[in-house]
């Protein structure tokens, strides 16, 4: 782990509550699912850093895509180009995706880490399709990029878009045996719904939750997995969807 104080070299608003921050971060060697802990403020309130996935890393340019949901992300959204931010990481276990035909299932801001997985697949010439669901047609982000990288894409929105529905309704309809493996990231409710579908292929979930340290020190990020507590930050965030007990 290293910590870096880096300047924001680009900031972009994708929607009215999702923005991206870009940094020049040479030497980072991230794997899909890995994330950084962003210090919200130099002061001690808010106290904890916020985990944000690596959404893209190309030629030393790091992109993180952040949705404003509470105080920390709100404060981060006030940072502008030129401002310095302290980043810790990368954290998350070293997960190397298999080179198999894959299906990516993104819900909402869950698209951020899957975008980086897509980049990884492109680089390693792995074929994949993508399903991406959002609430309204204005919520899609990184769309063109993803269309370029994926073989096939299905975009779906709960309302305001020609294809109405959720990723779950799409997954129910398609033939999953076209794929050898699936990856998903999105709100907990979506993961629970996907889990109930009992898909015939291995499904890996990118888990998100409130963390403490983000790096294995505090045991604050427990998730019940195959009968025992795992730490999202170091044993995850990528875990097999079927093994997670969301009831605990």
């Amino acid at each position, binding site marked *: 782990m290293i910590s870096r104080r880096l300047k924001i070299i680009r900031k972009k608003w994708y929607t009215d509550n999702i923005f991206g921050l870009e940094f020049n971060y040479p030497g980072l060697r991230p794997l899909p699912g890995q994330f950084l802990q962003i210090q919200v403020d130099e002061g001690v309130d808010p106290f904890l850093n916020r985990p944000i996935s690596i959404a893209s890393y190309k030629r030393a340019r790091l992109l993180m895509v952040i949705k404003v949901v509470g105080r920390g992300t709100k404060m981060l959204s006030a940072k502008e180009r030129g401002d310095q931010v302290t980043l810790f990481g990368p954290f998350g276990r070293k997960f190397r995706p298999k080179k198999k035909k894959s299906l990516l299932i993104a819900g909402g801001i869950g698209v951020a880490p899957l975008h980086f997985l897509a980049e990884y697949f492109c680089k390693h010439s792995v074929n994949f399709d993508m399903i991406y669901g959002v609430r309204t047609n204005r919520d899609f982000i990184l769309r063109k990029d993803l269309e370029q990288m994926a073989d096939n894409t299905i975009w779906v929105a709960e309302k305001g878009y020609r294809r109405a529905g959720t990723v779950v309704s799409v997954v129910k309809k398609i033939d999953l045996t076209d794929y050898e493996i699936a990856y998903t990231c999105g709100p907990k409710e979506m993961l629970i719904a996907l889990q109930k579908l009992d898909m015939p292929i291995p499904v890996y979930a990118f888990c998100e939750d409130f963390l403490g340290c983000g790096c294995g020190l505090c045991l604050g990020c*427990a998730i019940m997995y195959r009968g025992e507590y795992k730490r999202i930050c170091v044993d995850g965030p990528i875990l097999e969807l079927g093994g997670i007990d969301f009831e605990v």
Partner: protein
Amino acid sequence: MKCRIFGIDFKNPVFLASGTFEFGLIYKNVSNRVGAIFTKGITLQPRKGNPPPRVHETACGLINSVGLENPGVEVFSRDILPQMRKLKTRIIVNVAGFTPDDFVKIVGELDSRVDAFELNVSCPNVKKGGVAFGRDPDICAEVVANVRRVTKLPVIVKLTANFCDPLIVGRRCVEAGADGLSLINTLHAMAFDIDKKRVLIKGGLSGPAIKPVALFCVHRLKDLGVPLIGVGGIMSGRDVYEFLLAGASAVAIGSATLRDPYAPLRIIKELKRLTTSG
């Protein structure tokens, strides 16, 4: 910056608190440069810990409810301690018992293979219907006396400020043979989820928010005649210095490492500058 307490030399008075630096094996370059590491709480049996959520941020602090997740003394002794022994620092085992007997057994199992013991008397006492040991001066004294009999190593008691006077409990512990006292443990705290209209978390409050309370407690016990280890909200060399003024001989860094695992190194540097300049 060397410091000698309990008849032991520590390379500096900045230690790592229990439960916030794992077993010191993740960031070894930090572990190797602090005076000592307090392990996380070790219980007799392995413990799964509490269901999530286990941490919740509050104003200038956090509430944790990890629930003493740990592999138990056997696995600790066999698999973890040997790795810890390779670190270039002192190892103080945080002993968490649910009965007075637990303490004796855990200490007995590890004796002579560590540098000191810290008795974590904050667990609910199963024999006494769940009331924390730490609030009962009699039981604390009993625990100390029993442990005293099975080890010659320094015995430190970690005191709580929750619903009891650490001065009363601390004095009894010292009379019963404790070599030192560390304080404070986290404060009882809660947060509610107003969207779901229910308890969000019930646990212990730590971080800068509690520093003023910890300083008060350390200062209150300064004349007990044993070294005190100050814990609570330390984020900087200046904070350490405040604890030393309050009467502590050393300090332990807890939550600060959750924000920045390297914070202890910065703190040591800042303290050095303060103590050499002034």
